[in-house]
């Protein structure tokens, strides 16, 4: 379970990146955060990962305060970034092996790694290929494999489908559905309103650091989510 209570972040230059964010993502729930660039989506993820300290409020992972006990909290979270960066001189399997061990999975075999690669749709001939020869989409798949193999209860995704071709993005969404069935709590920050509509159980729209609206599946399916989103963005322009 992921929880933000009055979470705020003001950077040293005075910019209020996140203003009193309150959200709760239950087990087996996908929460999509929509918003323009600089709306505070990535700041939210960075606060959950304790990469930055909050100015106010608390971020909790499985009821553990990430600022008080970051190492314990990080045992229960996986992360996939917009642009997965891995060790170029290592093969996909070696990268997965290293990060699996860091995630506490120390007794996995080569076949276990291959199974995860097959699950995310990575081609067989790429398993032992060096990462520097991989396309962005392939790297995203390895990044997702790392998140899956950790088997954490919570997953943070920062624009994971950016730059993926439609087929790869659709495969990605299928994996997210499987993860939801496994009762994972998933927070996905994205610009892709159509993907959000397709996969989310709840959608939140962020604007200038504030979570201005939250709609559950029934609500955003009955309303026109695109219109709601664009109205908020238009206000921003005006």
């Amino acid at each position, binding site marked *: 379970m992921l929880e933000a209570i009055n979470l705020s972040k003001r950077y040293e230059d005075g910019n209020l990146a996140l203003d009193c964010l309150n959200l709760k993502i239950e087990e087996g729930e996908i929460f999509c955060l929509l918003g323009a660039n600089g709306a505070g989506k990535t700041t939210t993820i960075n606060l959950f990962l304790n990469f930055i300290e909050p100015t106010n409020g608390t971020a909790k992972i499985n009821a553990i305060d990430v600022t008080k006990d970051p190492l314990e909290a990080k045992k229960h979270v996986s*992360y996939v970034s917009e*642009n997965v960066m891995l060790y170029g001189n*290592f093969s996909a399997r070696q990268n997965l092996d*290293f990060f699996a061990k860091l995630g506490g999975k120390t007794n996995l075999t080569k076949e276990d790694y291959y199974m995860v690669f097959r699950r995310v749709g990575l081609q067989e001939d790429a398993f032992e290929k060096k990462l520097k020869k991989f396309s962005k989409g392939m790297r995203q798949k390895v990044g997702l494999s790392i998140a899956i193999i950790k088997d954490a209860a919570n997953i943070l995704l920062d624009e994971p489908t950016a730059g993926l071709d439609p087929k790869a993005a659709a495969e990605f969404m299928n994996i997210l559905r499987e993860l939801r069935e496994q009762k994972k709590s998933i927070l996905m920050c994205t610009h892709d309103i159509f993907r959000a509509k397709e996969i989310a159980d709840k959608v939140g729209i962020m604007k200038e650091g504030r979570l201005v609206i939250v709609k559950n599946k029934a609500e955003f399916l009955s309303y026109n989510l695109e219109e709601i989103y664009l109205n908020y963005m238009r206000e921003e322009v005006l």
Partner: protein
Amino acid sequence: MLKYIIQKEIQENVISLRYIFLLMLCVVTISFSSYEMYKQYINNIEEHSYKTTDPNEILIKKQPSVLSVYISGTKELMDKTFIFNRDMYEPMELSSGINLNIFRQLFPTLDFLYLVKMLFSLLALILSFDLICGEKNEGTLKLILTNSVSKGKIIFGKLIANYILLIIL
């Protein structure tokens, strides 16, 4: 956790072009140095077999050490032979016993000790200059830090791994 960071660091470095280049540099310089020192050692052996023809002189010669192939020590600064005349109490060619050639002190013999002091200090620097900022620039540090591993462990693991790599060199 520390073990995996050390393993990864060693594995990553060993297959990197930089490490292969440094390894080659070490092999070449050490081979060159050993060859030169061996030649000097042979010369010293030949000098050692020199005998004075003057019956009034006693020749005292320092025997070249086998290990001088690797480390020259102070032998370059010290005289190798001392000739005593039977009629004199003082050695004839002892001068001060120490060669004060400043040029030689500025450019000492390229023995193994010199290589360890100079070359290996440089190698340590080349190996370690981007330990953390390299990971940060590559973006991998962020992914490591999403796991339950402290920054201290990462730095310590990298330090140990690079010490091991330097020892291998």
